[in-house]
């Protein structure tokens, strides 16, 4: 399955003979083993959705969210080590706040993605620290419109129209590619996101999961908020019906 580094994988500061940094690749494994997160850039906003796996029934519902807000207009979905994800969000908040204080304007999505990715990359340089074991989906809405970025543990970032990370990413990516994102409204995208996460969720391996849905759109006054309960419930129902089309519901 995985190739073993054997001697070249002990530190971030070591290349393998074929030019790989194994510690960074291992960090990516942490992301690949986590619950799926997807982001969709629609014509009128951003939708973020997370399959938050619930390991124990004793956990308080709605806690340990993997969706967080950085500035009014920026939402973040993390995958991988939850604590690392929270740390990166903290850094992103500092960057956004510092930008506002210096330039008296909200930070543009691209600038924030650039800064955060530089930060992540710095932790891949030294043997005294470990790379972050999380990937971050950044959804923003600034004066240029909605934008979506993803930063991986290596510090690479790209802009996306649709993105999936985590264990179900291959299947989710296939589903996302079927969507006409440029014509999709956020309302429809919320339903599609819920549907896709239900499709990729493996009932056998991971029992319980919470569906975290958040958006940035006109209805949310261009701010990142969790999707209102009624719309989320509607999306959940749409997803269930799509999964079980033969079951009749009263």
């Amino acid at each position, binding site marked *: 399955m995985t190739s073993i580094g054997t001697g070249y994988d002990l530190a971030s500061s070591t290349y393998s003979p074929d030019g790989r940094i194994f510690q960074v690749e291992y960090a990516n494994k942490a992301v690949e083993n986590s619950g799926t997160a997807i982001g969709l850039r629609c014509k009128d906003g951003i939708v973020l959705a997370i399959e938050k796996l619930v390991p124990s029934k004793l956990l308080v519902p709605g806690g340990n969210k993997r969706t967080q807000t950085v500035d009014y207009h920026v939402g973040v979905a993390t995958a991988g080590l939850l604590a690392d994800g929270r740390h990166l969000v903290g850094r992103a908040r500092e960057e956004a706040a510092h930008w506002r204080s*210096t*330039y*008296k*304007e909200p930070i*543009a999505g*691209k*600038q924030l993605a*650039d800064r955060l990715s530089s930060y992540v990359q710095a932790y891949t340089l030294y043997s005294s620290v470990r790379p972050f074991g999380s990937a971050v989906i950044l959804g923003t809405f600034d*004066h240029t419109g909605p934008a979506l970025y993803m930063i991986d543990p290596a510090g690479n970032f790209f802009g996306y129209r649709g993105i999936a990370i985590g264990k179900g990413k291959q299947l989710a990516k296939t589903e996302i590619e079927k969507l006409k994102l440029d014509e999709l409204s956020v309302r429809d995208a919320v339903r599609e996101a819920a549907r896709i996460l239900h499709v990729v969720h493996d009932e056998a391996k991971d029992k319980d999961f919470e569906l975290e849905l958040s958006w940035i759109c006109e209805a949310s006054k261009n701010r990142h908020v969790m999707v209102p309960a009624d719309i989320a419930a509607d999306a959940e129902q749409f997803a269930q019906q799509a999964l079980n089309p033969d079951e009749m519901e009263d």
Partner: protein
Amino acid sequence: MSLKPGEVNLGTTIMAVEFNGGVVIGADSRTTTGSYIANRVTDKLTMVHDRVYCCRSGSAADTQAVADIVHYYCQMYSTQHGEAPAVKVAAAMFQELCYQNKDNLMAGIIVAGWDKHKGGSVYSIPLGGSLHKQPFAIGGSGSSYIYGYCDAAYRHNMTAEECVAFTKNAIALAMSRDGSSGGCIRLAVITEAGVERIFVPGNELPTFFEG
């Protein structure tokens, strides 16, 4: 206000007025060291970016240093950001420097220009380092004498030509009453299309009651 030995003062009258589509900025041209006029043809209108200028009053050295730093910041911003900084952003940069270094600076600056989001904007940053967005702003030692004239003559929605006349008249009046202001008037009209500089020599100044 006591100057340090050798320090040179921009006695000054500076002004900026916003109109629909841009701004008009103007200044006199006198720099003094005590009563000696060190430069009688000074250009106090300094570019910090293609469509953002500042009008400098107070210590010549201090304002030049601050403007140079903001010019650098604006270049970095536009290179990294991919678009020109808004006037508000440039004004924020000036404010940060003027406020954090208020004990060591004597700088009264008016930031004015055009950006694609807000069109023309004028921001005043007086000695303490506060920031004030205004439809028009006046500054420098000569400005004291023209507050009444400006308040009476200003109207909303003036055209660019009317703003130029308003600015020219106001600065001329200040120059005739303030010993630290004089020489000629330098004006600039900043719009989306660019920066148009206007020079009014000392013998072509608008004349008013001279006694």
